[in-house]
């Protein structure tokens, strides 16, 4: 937990430094029309860096000796995050409808170990239902790929 607190504080402080650098480039003072663009971000970032130092000090002094995440608990988390990232990559490549069908099918088989009948029903049913609700009724377009083009959308 201590390491996680320190790392997070360090990342946030580094982000703060980045903001300060950009704010200085934009000007942090008084322009012709009031405060310059960098004024607000500059002071935010200065405060942020200060807070991160305080959190780091706190973390060094009093942290309970529990790990941020146990090795056993990390597995299920990555098992969600990995396929989800894969799903986003697929969405970019072949559109959301096909990607969500593949993603659901894969996840339900790999993690859920569902029967093929259930997998096919959900993995096909969900994208089809989404298509009608979003694309047809509410006219909100989703990313599409070759399959949709082939079907004429």
């Amino acid at each position, binding site marked *: 937990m201590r390491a996680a607190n320190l790392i*997070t504080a360090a990342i946030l402080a580094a982000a703060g430094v980045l903001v300060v650098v950009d704010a200085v480039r934009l000007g942090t003072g008084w322009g012709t029309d009031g*405060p310059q*663009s960098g004024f607000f971000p500059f002071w935010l970032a200065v*405060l942020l860096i200060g807070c991160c130092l305080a959190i780091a000090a706190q973390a060094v002094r009093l942290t309970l000796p529990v790990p941020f995440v146990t090795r056993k608990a990390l597995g*299920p988390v990555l098992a969600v995050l990995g396929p989800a990232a894969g799903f986003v990559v697929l*969405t970019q490549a072949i559109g959301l409808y096909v990607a969500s069908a593949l993603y659901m099918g894969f*996840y339900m088989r790999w993690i859920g170990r569902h029967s093929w009948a259930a997998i096919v029903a959900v993995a096909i049913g969900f994208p089809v239902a989404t298509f009608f609700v979003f694309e047809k009724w509410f006219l909100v377009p989703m990313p599409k790929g070759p399959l949709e083009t082939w079907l004429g959308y």
Partner: protein
Amino acid sequence: MGFENLLLGFQVALQPHNLMVAVVGIALGTVIGVLPGLGGANGVAILLPLTFTMPPTSAIILLTSLYWGALFGGAITSILFNIPGEPWSVATTFDGFPMARRGEGGQALTAAFTSSFVGALFSVVLITLFAPLLAEVALKFGPPEFFAIQLLTFSSFIGLGGGNPIKSLVSILLGFILASVGLDIVTGALRLTFGVTELMKGFDFIVAVIGLFGIGEILLTMEEGLSFKGASARINPRVVWETWKTLPRYWRTFVRGSMIGFWMGFKPGGATPASFMSYAFAKRFSRHPERFGKGEIEGVVAPETAAHAAGVAAILPMITLGIPGSPTAAVMLGGLIIWGLQPGPMLFKERPDFVWGLIASMYTGNVIGVVMVLLFVPIFAAILRIPFGMLTPLIVAVCAIGAYSVHSSMIDIWYMLGFGVIGYVFKKLDYPLAPLVLALVLGDLAENALRQSLIMSQGSLLIFLNRPISGAITAVALFFFFLPALSLGRRRLKAPPAPAASHPDHTP
């Protein structure tokens, strides 16, 4: 005068179309409240794009009904499954789950829904009375007053939030910094883009809400490896009636819970502390405090009344000042802007049909809500029996759809994933998420108010203290801001430092 307006509102809210919208909203909201990983805020965020083509009044009725539904849904999982769907239902599990295990799930649920209804009604009545007055006062506000209110909003997270005040401040600062990414509308300069074109548009808070609360929550749920083994509830008209007969004797708890809820609720982050406070008070004043935690019905009544009263009260600053009190209200505020309405006090003058339709729909929505949840509890509870292997990809896909449809942009789905990881890490390290979201929403408004105030005063910060209204608000804000430091100092004087206790999370 107020009464006529309310009548006008009911004419809007009671239109068959709007009643149907309310029913759909509550049904969906209850489902969202029951499902892990989909709470009020991101449920509203995901459905927001679907309202783009609707008339604004129906759209806000859909979203608020969704919110009431989510509040009711949280009670179902707390009582039957011992899983608080929302942080403010944590206190409901203390006595609700023991009751359900004893076979009194029906009684606990009836008590919870009825208390929710009473708390909500109390807050709606107060909103009906006070919202026009507050809007009238707010019409006289200038930039310094608005900035002072923002200051108050964020200092109450620091002073009253309950967690680590420095971490609350970090969340706020991070939200403001993320809000400043992209084009500066005042000077036209590009900020924090570092030459990356994608960053020019900045970060949309709706995407942040979906990532932080949706994806982050799923990751947490998976890590805890929850399995849903719930008690079943028999709920029938006789159980409901028998329970209702016992409830009037807790009228004191109802009144206390409602008042605590309203008082805490119109300030940010209030619902969760309100529910705990109400529970603690009920226990202290009870003649049988030893029964609390073992399945005392009063222990269900107290937190539910307060949580729901607070949840409704959070709408008050949103419609009168244009400053949301909770992430859910923030998403609704975002909706208002997208539908072409200008949130703030002028709304009462320009669109009375919208404002009063919304207020009237809070009455109708809560009546419909309590009837629906009482009738359909078994169906809603059955949702939790959907296996995780099916639920997880469904929720992830729904979140992705919601994130994409805000701007029809692919990069938002990536941001959603990133915010999901941030949400997971922040939640584990006790950084509150609600202030981050509110800061991201209010960033531009706050910065503009600050700039305009400073232009008015030619650079002097004293303007916030010199004007009477903003001076008073700023003073309260500063008090809240330094409250943690003050109480720490006092504790140091009295006793040697004790190890920091872990606080309940207060992300609404």
